[in-house]
Protein backbone atom coordinates (compact mmCIF):
# COMPACT_ATOMS: atom_id res chain seq x y z
CA UNK A 1 0.00 0.00 0.00
CA UNK A 2 1.44 3.37 -0.96
CA UNK A 3 1.85 6.27 1.49
CA UNK A 4 -1.15 8.12 0.07
CA UNK A 5 -3.43 5.06 0.13
CA UNK A 6 -2.42 4.53 3.76
CA UNK A 7 -2.98 8.23 4.47
CA UNK A 8 -6.48 8.03 2.96
CA UNK A 9 -7.28 4.86 4.84
CA UNK A 10 -6.21 6.17 8.26
CA UNK A 11 -7.52 9.71 8.19
CA UNK A 12 -10.60 9.42 5.97
CA UNK A 13 -11.90 5.86 6.10
CA UNK A 14 -11.11 5.31 9.77
CA UNK A 15 -12.09 8.92 10.56
CA UNK A 16 -8.92 9.90 12.47
CA UNK A 17 -9.00 13.33 10.81
CA UNK A 18 -11.33 14.55 13.56
CA UNK A 19 -8.75 13.65 16.22
CA UNK A 20 -6.04 15.47 14.25
CA UNK A 21 -8.28 18.51 13.80
CA UNK A 22 -9.00 18.62 17.53
CA UNK A 23 -5.28 18.40 18.22
CA UNK A 24 -4.57 21.15 15.72
CA UNK A 25 -7.21 23.33 17.37
CA UNK A 26 -5.71 22.78 20.84
CA UNK A 27 -2.23 23.66 19.58
CA UNK A 28 -3.54 26.91 18.10
CA UNK A 29 -5.50 27.80 21.24
CA UNK A 30 -2.51 27.16 23.51
CA UNK A 31 -0.11 29.07 21.25
CA UNK A 32 -2.30 32.15 20.75
CA UNK A 33 -3.37 32.23 24.40
CA UNK A 34 0.20 31.85 25.62
CA UNK A 35 1.37 34.58 23.24
CA UNK A 36 -1.22 36.97 24.64
CA UNK A 37 -0.38 36.14 28.26
CA UNK A 38 3.35 36.32 27.49
CA UNK A 39 3.04 39.72 25.84
CA UNK A 40 1.04 41.16 28.73
CA UNK A 41 3.41 39.80 31.38
CA UNK A 42 6.47 40.76 29.35
CA UNK A 43 5.25 44.31 28.79
CA UNK A 44 4.34 44.81 32.46
CA UNK A 45 7.75 43.55 33.62
CA UNK A 46 9.59 45.60 31.01
CA UNK A 47 7.75 48.78 32.02
CA UNK A 48 8.38 48.14 35.73
CA UNK A 49 12.09 47.64 35.06
CA UNK A 50 12.21 50.70 32.78
CA UNK A 51 10.86 52.96 35.50
CA UNK A 52 12.37 51.01 38.40
CA UNK A 53 15.92 51.93 37.49
CA UNK A 54 15.68 55.37 39.07
CA UNK A 55 12.86 54.97 41.56
CA UNK A 56 13.52 53.69 45.07
CA UNK A 57 9.93 52.77 46.00
CA UNK A 58 9.81 50.39 43.03
CA UNK A 59 12.87 48.39 44.09
CA UNK A 60 10.86 45.50 45.64
CA UNK A 61 8.80 45.21 42.45
CA UNK A 62 11.93 45.13 40.32
CA UNK A 63 13.35 42.47 42.61
CA UNK A 64 10.19 40.38 42.19
CA UNK A 65 10.40 40.70 38.41
CA UNK A 66 14.04 39.62 38.44
CA UNK A 67 13.12 36.64 40.60
CA UNK A 68 10.37 35.68 38.18
CA UNK A 69 12.53 35.82 35.07
CA UNK A 70 15.40 33.99 36.78
CA UNK A 71 13.20 31.16 38.05
CA UNK A 72 11.16 30.73 34.88
CA UNK A 73 14.14 30.87 32.55
CA UNK A 74 16.07 28.42 34.73
CA UNK A 75 13.46 25.65 34.60
CA UNK A 76 12.74 23.57 31.46
CA UNK A 77 9.25 24.30 30.24
CA UNK A 78 8.26 20.60 30.49
CA UNK A 79 9.16 20.55 34.18
CA UNK A 80 7.26 23.81 34.65
CA UNK A 81 4.25 22.25 32.94
CA UNK A 82 4.39 19.14 35.15
CA UNK A 83 4.63 21.30 38.28
CA UNK A 84 1.63 23.38 37.24
CA UNK A 85 -0.46 20.35 36.31
CA UNK A 86 0.40 17.93 39.10
CA UNK A 87 1.18 20.30 41.98
CA UNK A 88 -0.19 23.83 41.74
CA UNK A 89 -3.41 23.05 39.87
CA UNK A 90 -3.62 19.37 40.86
CA UNK A 91 -7.34 19.66 41.51
CA UNK A 92 -8.11 20.95 38.01
CA UNK A 93 -8.25 18.66 35.02
CA UNK A 94 -8.47 21.44 32.43
CA UNK A 95 -5.20 20.61 30.72
CA UNK A 96 -5.55 23.14 27.91
CA UNK A 97 -6.05 26.06 30.29
CA UNK A 98 -3.13 24.97 32.46
CA UNK A 99 -0.90 24.46 29.42
CA UNK A 100 -1.86 27.89 28.04
CA UNK A 101 -1.07 29.53 31.36
CA UNK A 102 2.23 27.67 31.73
CA UNK A 103 3.47 28.49 28.25
CA UNK A 104 2.29 32.08 28.74
CA UNK A 105 4.20 32.45 31.99
CA UNK A 106 7.24 30.84 30.41
CA UNK A 107 7.08 33.07 27.35
CA UNK A 108 6.51 36.17 29.51
CA UNK A 109 9.99 35.83 30.97
CA UNK A 110 11.52 35.94 27.49
CA UNK A 111 9.14 38.63 26.21
CA UNK A 112 10.15 40.84 29.16
CA UNK A 113 13.72 41.05 27.90
CA UNK A 114 12.52 41.61 24.33
CA UNK A 115 10.17 44.44 25.22
CA UNK A 116 12.79 45.98 27.50
CA UNK A 117 15.34 46.09 24.71
CA UNK A 118 12.68 47.76 22.56
CA UNK A 119 11.92 50.39 25.23
CA UNK A 120 15.61 51.13 25.67
CA UNK A 121 16.04 51.56 21.92
CA UNK A 122 13.63 54.53 21.97
CA UNK A 123 15.52 57.81 22.35
CA UNK A 124 15.44 59.16 25.92
CA UNK A 125 14.37 62.54 24.50
CA UNK A 126 10.98 61.02 23.66
CA UNK A 127 10.17 60.43 27.32
CA UNK A 128 11.37 63.96 28.18
CA UNK A 129 9.26 65.49 25.42
CA UNK A 130 6.18 63.66 26.67
CA UNK A 131 6.79 64.62 30.29
CA UNK A 132 7.52 68.26 29.36
CA UNK A 133 4.02 68.49 27.87
CA UNK A 134 2.54 67.43 31.20
CA UNK A 135 1.85 63.79 30.34
CA UNK A 136 2.38 61.31 33.16
CA UNK A 137 4.98 58.55 32.97
CA UNK A 138 2.36 55.97 32.06
CA UNK A 139 0.62 58.18 29.49
CA UNK A 140 3.96 58.84 27.81
CA UNK A 141 4.79 55.14 27.95
CA UNK A 142 1.49 54.13 26.36
CA UNK A 143 1.23 56.78 23.65
CA UNK A 144 4.84 57.66 22.86
CA UNK A 145 7.34 54.99 23.93
CA UNK A 146 5.55 51.63 23.52
CA UNK A 147 4.27 52.22 19.96
CA UNK A 148 7.84 52.99 18.86
CA UNK A 149 9.32 50.08 20.84
CA UNK A 150 6.90 47.56 19.27
CA UNK A 151 8.12 48.53 15.80
CA UNK A 152 11.70 47.77 16.81
CA UNK A 153 10.94 44.35 18.31
CA UNK A 154 8.24 42.98 16.00
CA UNK A 155 10.65 40.56 14.25
CA UNK A 156 11.90 39.28 17.60
CA UNK A 157 8.31 38.76 18.80
CA UNK A 158 7.61 36.63 15.73
CA UNK A 159 10.68 34.52 16.45
CA UNK A 160 9.40 34.03 19.98
CA UNK A 161 5.98 33.09 18.59
CA UNK A 162 7.51 30.46 16.29
CA UNK A 163 9.53 28.99 19.16
CA UNK A 164 6.39 29.02 21.30
CA UNK A 165 4.35 27.17 18.66
CA UNK A 166 6.89 24.37 18.49
CA UNK A 167 7.36 24.29 22.27
CA UNK A 168 3.67 23.52 22.80
CA UNK A 169 4.33 20.07 21.33
CA UNK A 170 5.23 18.93 24.85
CA UNK A 171 1.71 19.66 26.11
CA UNK A 172 0.94 15.96 25.69
CA UNK A 173 2.88 15.36 28.92
CA UNK A 174 -0.14 16.54 30.88
CA UNK A 175 -2.84 14.68 28.98
CA UNK A 176 -3.59 17.55 26.58
CA UNK A 177 -4.37 16.26 23.10
CA UNK A 178 -2.49 18.77 21.01
CA UNK A 179 -1.31 18.21 17.45
CA UNK A 180 1.71 16.13 18.49
CA UNK A 181 -0.25 14.07 20.99
CA UNK A 182 -2.99 13.44 18.42
CA UNK A 183 -0.33 12.07 16.08
CA UNK A 184 0.93 9.78 18.82
CA UNK A 185 -2.59 8.48 19.51
CA UNK A 186 -3.11 7.74 15.82
CA UNK A 187 0.26 5.98 15.72
CA UNK A 188 -0.65 3.79 18.71
CA UNK A 189 -4.07 2.91 17.36
CA UNK A 190 -3.05 2.13 13.78
CA UNK A 191 0.45 0.70 14.33
CA UNK A 192 1.64 3.08 11.61
CA UNK A 193 4.31 5.65 12.49
CA UNK A 194 5.22 7.16 9.13
CA UNK A 195 1.87 8.59 8.10
CA UNK A 196 0.76 10.41 11.29
CA UNK A 197 4.24 11.70 12.12
CA UNK A 198 4.70 13.04 8.60
CA UNK A 199 1.38 14.84 8.80
CA UNK A 200 2.23 16.34 12.19
CA UNK A 201 5.64 17.52 10.99
CA UNK A 202 4.21 19.03 7.82
CA UNK A 203 1.50 20.92 9.70
CA UNK A 204 4.07 22.54 12.05
CA UNK A 205 6.28 23.32 9.09
CA UNK A 206 3.47 24.97 7.14
CA UNK A 207 2.44 27.04 10.18
CA UNK A 208 6.00 28.27 10.71
CA UNK A 209 6.41 29.10 7.02
CA UNK A 210 3.15 31.05 7.09
CA UNK A 211 4.24 33.00 10.18
CA UNK A 212 7.58 33.80 8.55
CA UNK A 213 5.77 35.05 5.44
CA UNK A 214 3.52 37.21 7.58
CA UNK A 215 6.54 38.72 9.32
CA UNK A 216 8.20 39.53 5.97
CA UNK A 217 5.00 41.21 4.85
CA UNK A 218 4.81 43.30 8.03
CA UNK A 219 8.48 44.22 7.81
CA UNK A 220 8.13 45.28 4.21
CA UNK A 221 5.11 47.40 5.05
CA UNK A 222 6.96 49.04 7.91
CA UNK A 223 10.02 49.73 5.80
CA UNK A 224 8.01 51.33 2.98
CA UNK A 225 6.37 53.30 5.74
CA UNK A 226 9.82 54.47 6.80
CA UNK A 227 10.84 55.27 3.24
CA UNK A 228 7.70 57.30 2.80
CA UNK A 229 8.39 59.09 6.03
CA UNK A 230 12.01 59.78 5.21
CA UNK A 231 11.58 60.82 1.61
Amino acid at each position, binding site marked *: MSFFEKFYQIFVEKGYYTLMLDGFKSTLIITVGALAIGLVIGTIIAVIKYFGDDSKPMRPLVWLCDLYTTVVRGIPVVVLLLIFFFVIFASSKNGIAIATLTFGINSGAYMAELVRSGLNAVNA*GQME*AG*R*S*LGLSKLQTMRKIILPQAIRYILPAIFNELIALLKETSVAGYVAVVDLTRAGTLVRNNTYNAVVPLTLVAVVYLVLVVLLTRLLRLLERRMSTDDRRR*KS
Partner: protein
Amino acid sequence: MIDVVNLEKHFGGENVLNGINTTIHKGDVVCVIGPSGSGKSTFLRCLNMLEKPTGGKIIFEGDDLMDKRVDLNAHRQKMGMVFQQFNLFPHMTIMENLTVAPLLLKKFDKGRAQEKALELLDRVGLADRANDYPSQLSGGQQQRVAICRALCMEPDVMLFDEPTSALDPEMVGEVLDVMKELAKAGMTMVVVTHEMGFAREVSNRVLFLDGGVIAEEGTPDAIFNHPQCERLQSFLAKVL
Protein backbone atom coordinates in the same frame (compact mmCIF):
# COMPACT_ATOMS: atom_id res chain seq x y z
CA MET B 1 6.27 83.85 37.88
CA ILE B 2 9.27 81.62 38.60
CA ASP B 3 11.40 82.19 41.69
CA VAL B 4 14.63 80.23 41.75
CA VAL B 5 16.08 80.12 45.25
CA ASN B 6 19.54 78.76 45.93
CA LEU B 7 19.21 76.06 43.28
CA GLU B 8 21.80 73.29 43.51
CA LYS B 9 22.46 70.22 41.41
CA HIS B 10 25.13 67.60 41.98
CA PHE B 11 25.76 64.63 39.69
CA GLY B 12 27.65 62.12 41.77
CA GLY B 13 30.68 64.06 42.97
CA GLU B 14 30.33 66.80 40.40
CA ASN B 15 28.74 70.12 41.34
CA VAL B 16 26.93 71.45 38.29
CA LEU B 17 24.82 74.15 39.91
CA ASN B 18 26.08 75.85 43.03
CA GLY B 19 23.29 78.06 44.29
CA ILE B 20 21.39 79.95 41.62
CA ASN B 21 19.06 82.77 42.61
CA THR B 22 16.89 84.62 40.13
CA THR B 23 13.32 85.57 39.35
CA ILE B 24 11.55 85.25 36.02
CA HIS B 25 8.71 87.78 35.74
CA LYS B 26 5.69 87.57 33.52
CA GLY B 27 6.58 88.84 30.04
CA ASP B 28 10.32 88.43 30.61
CA VAL B 29 12.50 87.16 27.82
CA VAL B 30 15.57 85.88 29.63
CA CYS B 31 18.55 84.56 27.71
CA VAL B 32 21.00 82.29 29.48
CA ILE B 33 24.53 82.34 28.06
CA GLY B 34 27.84 80.93 29.18
CA PRO B 35 30.65 78.55 28.26
CA SER B 36 29.87 74.88 27.74
CA GLY B 37 29.76 72.99 31.01
CA SER B 38 28.68 76.10 32.90
CA GLY B 39 25.36 74.49 33.81
CA LYS B 40 23.00 76.49 31.55
CA SER B 41 21.11 73.49 30.19
CA THR B 42 20.95 71.84 33.59
CA PHE B 43 19.57 75.08 35.04
CA LEU B 44 16.85 75.20 32.38
CA ARG B 45 15.97 71.52 32.79
CA CYS B 46 15.67 72.02 36.53
CA LEU B 47 13.00 74.68 35.96
CA ASN B 48 10.48 72.05 34.84
CA MET B 49 12.08 69.30 36.92
CA LEU B 50 13.24 67.18 33.99
CA GLU B 51 16.41 67.27 36.05
CA LYS B 52 15.78 66.84 39.77
CA PRO B 53 17.65 69.53 41.71
CA THR B 54 19.56 68.37 44.77
CA GLY B 55 18.89 71.55 46.74
CA GLY B 56 17.03 74.85 46.77
CA LYS B 57 13.58 75.85 45.63
CA ILE B 58 11.79 76.46 42.35
CA ILE B 59 8.62 78.38 43.04
CA PHE B 60 6.33 78.41 40.02
CA GLU B 61 3.07 80.35 40.28
CA GLY B 62 3.18 80.06 44.05
CA ASP B 63 4.00 76.35 44.38
CA ASP B 64 7.41 74.93 45.23
CA LEU B 65 8.05 72.28 42.58
CA MET B 66 10.51 70.55 44.91
CA ASP B 67 7.62 69.78 47.25
CA LYS B 68 6.64 66.13 46.79
CA ARG B 69 2.93 66.90 47.22
CA VAL B 70 2.88 69.25 44.22
CA ASP B 71 1.31 67.85 41.05
CA LEU B 72 4.28 68.20 38.69
CA ASN B 73 2.35 67.09 35.61
CA ALA B 74 -0.21 69.86 36.11
CA HIS B 75 2.56 72.46 36.41
CA ARG B 76 4.45 71.12 33.42
CA GLN B 77 1.35 71.70 31.29
CA LYS B 78 1.97 75.41 31.88
CA MET B 79 5.68 75.25 31.00
CA GLY B 80 6.32 74.52 27.35
CA MET B 81 9.73 73.15 26.45
CA VAL B 82 11.67 73.13 23.18
CA PHE B 83 14.66 70.80 22.91
CA GLN B 84 17.92 71.02 21.02
CA GLN B 85 17.08 67.74 19.23
CA PHE B 86 13.41 68.69 18.58
CA ASN B 87 12.20 65.34 20.01
CA LEU B 88 9.11 65.21 17.82
CA PHE B 89 7.23 61.91 18.01
CA PRO B 90 8.34 60.09 14.83
CA HIS B 91 5.40 57.65 14.70
CA MET B 92 2.81 60.44 14.61
CA THR B 93 1.87 62.99 11.97
CA ILE B 94 2.54 66.66 12.67
CA MET B 95 -1.14 67.09 13.58
CA GLU B 96 -0.98 64.16 16.02
CA ASN B 97 2.23 65.52 17.50
CA LEU B 98 0.46 68.76 18.31
CA THR B 99 -2.81 67.31 19.58
CA VAL B 100 -1.73 64.21 21.51
CA ALA B 101 -1.10 66.04 24.80
CA PRO B 102 -4.14 68.39 24.72
CA LEU B 103 -6.42 65.44 23.91
CA LEU B 104 -4.96 63.05 26.48
CA LEU B 105 -5.06 65.70 29.18
CA LYS B 106 -8.57 66.69 28.10
CA LYS B 107 -7.61 70.30 27.64
CA PHE B 108 -9.60 70.59 24.39
CA ASP B 109 -12.01 68.37 22.50
CA LYS B 110 -10.78 66.98 19.20
CA GLY B 111 -12.26 69.68 16.97
CA ARG B 112 -10.92 72.53 19.07
CA ALA B 113 -7.48 70.92 19.42
CA GLN B 114 -7.11 70.48 15.66
CA GLU B 115 -8.31 74.01 15.03
CA LYS B 116 -5.77 75.31 17.53
CA ALA B 117 -3.02 73.17 15.98
CA LEU B 118 -3.74 74.46 12.48
CA GLU B 119 -3.81 78.03 13.75
CA LEU B 120 -0.35 77.59 15.29
CA LEU B 121 1.04 75.77 12.26
CA ASP B 122 -0.25 78.58 10.10
CA ARG B 123 1.60 81.11 12.23
CA VAL B 124 4.89 79.31 11.53
CA GLY B 125 4.01 78.73 7.87
CA LEU B 126 3.58 74.96 8.06
CA ALA B 127 -0.19 74.47 7.94
CA ASP B 128 0.12 72.50 4.69
CA ARG B 129 2.38 69.90 6.37
CA ALA B 130 -0.11 68.84 9.06
CA ASN B 131 -0.50 65.33 7.66
CA ASP B 132 3.22 64.69 7.05
CA TYR B 133 5.53 62.82 9.40
CA PRO B 134 8.38 64.61 11.19
CA SER B 135 11.08 62.87 9.13
CA GLN B 136 9.63 64.42 5.99
CA LEU B 137 10.48 67.89 7.30
CA SER B 138 13.79 69.75 7.45
CA GLY B 139 15.42 70.43 10.80
CA GLY B 140 14.24 74.02 10.87
CA GLN B 141 10.69 72.96 10.06
CA GLN B 142 10.79 70.27 12.74
CA GLN B 143 11.91 72.77 15.33
CA ARG B 144 9.10 75.16 14.34
CA VAL B 145 6.66 72.27 14.76
CA ALA B 146 8.19 71.50 18.16
CA ILE B 147 7.53 75.09 19.22
CA CYS B 148 3.91 74.73 18.08
CA ARG B 149 3.59 71.45 19.98
CA ALA B 150 4.58 73.21 23.19
CA LEU B 151 2.33 76.19 22.46
CA CYS B 152 -0.66 73.92 21.87
CA MET B 153 -0.91 73.45 25.65
CA GLU B 154 -1.19 77.24 26.02
CA PRO B 155 1.70 77.46 28.49
CA ASP B 156 2.45 80.47 30.69
CA VAL B 157 6.18 80.20 30.04
CA MET B 158 8.32 78.66 27.30
CA LEU B 159 11.71 77.08 27.98
CA PHE B 160 14.15 76.79 25.07
CA ASP B 161 17.16 74.50 25.42
CA GLU B 162 19.63 75.59 22.71
CA PRO B 163 16.86 75.46 20.09
CA THR B 164 19.11 76.28 17.12
CA SER B 165 22.28 74.37 18.02
CA ALA B 166 21.37 71.23 16.04
CA LEU B 167 20.33 73.15 12.92
CA ASP B 168 22.13 73.78 9.65
CA PRO B 169 23.18 77.44 9.57
CA GLU B 170 20.67 78.44 6.90
CA MET B 171 17.80 77.17 9.05
CA VAL B 172 18.71 79.04 12.22
CA GLY B 173 17.03 82.23 11.04
CA GLU B 174 13.56 80.75 10.46
CA VAL B 175 13.47 79.35 14.02
CA LEU B 176 14.77 82.55 15.60
CA ASP B 177 12.13 84.51 13.67
CA VAL B 178 9.38 82.37 15.20
CA MET B 179 10.87 82.94 18.63
CA LYS B 180 11.05 86.70 18.03
CA GLU B 181 7.36 86.72 17.04
CA LEU B 182 6.57 84.83 20.20
CA ALA B 183 8.50 87.31 22.34
CA LYS B 184 6.73 90.22 20.64
CA ALA B 185 3.39 88.60 21.41
CA GLY B 186 4.30 88.84 25.09
CA MET B 187 5.23 85.22 25.88
CA THR B 188 7.42 84.70 28.92
CA MET B 189 10.55 82.93 27.69
CA VAL B 190 13.74 81.46 29.11
CA VAL B 191 16.22 80.73 26.35
CA VAL B 192 19.53 78.93 26.66
CA THR B 193 21.40 79.98 23.55
CA HIS B 194 24.66 80.61 21.77
CA GLU B 195 22.97 83.12 19.46
CA MET B 196 24.36 86.35 20.92
CA GLY B 197 22.57 88.42 18.28
CA PHE B 198 19.24 87.01 19.40
CA ALA B 199 20.07 87.59 23.08
CA ARG B 200 21.07 91.17 22.38
CA GLU B 201 18.09 91.98 20.21
CA VAL B 202 15.17 90.15 21.80
CA SER B 203 15.84 89.56 25.49
CA ASN B 204 15.21 92.07 28.25
CA ARG B 205 17.63 90.31 30.60
CA VAL B 206 20.70 88.14 30.15
CA LEU B 207 22.13 85.68 32.68
CA PHE B 208 25.77 84.75 32.29
CA LEU B 209 26.42 81.40 33.92
CA ASP B 210 29.88 80.19 34.80
CA GLY B 211 30.91 77.40 37.15
CA GLY B 212 27.32 76.72 38.18
CA VAL B 213 26.51 80.23 39.42
CA ILE B 214 25.16 83.39 37.82
CA ALA B 215 28.43 85.24 37.34
CA GLU B 216 26.75 88.31 35.91
CA GLU B 217 23.20 89.41 35.18
CA GLY B 218 21.78 92.45 33.49
CA THR B 219 20.16 94.05 30.46
CA PRO B 220 21.59 93.04 27.08
CA ASP B 221 23.19 96.46 26.85
CA ALA B 222 24.94 96.08 30.19
CA ILE B 223 26.05 92.51 29.50
CA PHE B 224 27.30 92.99 25.95
CA ASN B 225 28.54 96.59 26.01
CA HIS B 226 29.69 97.00 29.59
CA PRO B 227 30.63 93.56 30.94
CA GLN B 228 31.95 93.81 34.48
CA CYS B 229 33.48 90.50 35.46
CA GLU B 230 36.59 89.19 33.78
CA ARG B 231 35.13 85.80 32.90
CA LEU B 232 32.30 87.42 30.97
CA GLN B 233 34.74 89.72 29.20
CA SER B 234 36.91 86.83 28.06
CA PHE B 235 33.81 84.77 27.10
CA LEU B 236 32.46 87.60 24.96
CA ALA B 237 35.86 88.17 23.39
CA LYS B 238 35.76 84.55 22.19
CA VAL B 239 32.18 84.39 20.90
CA LEU B 240 31.56 87.83 19.45
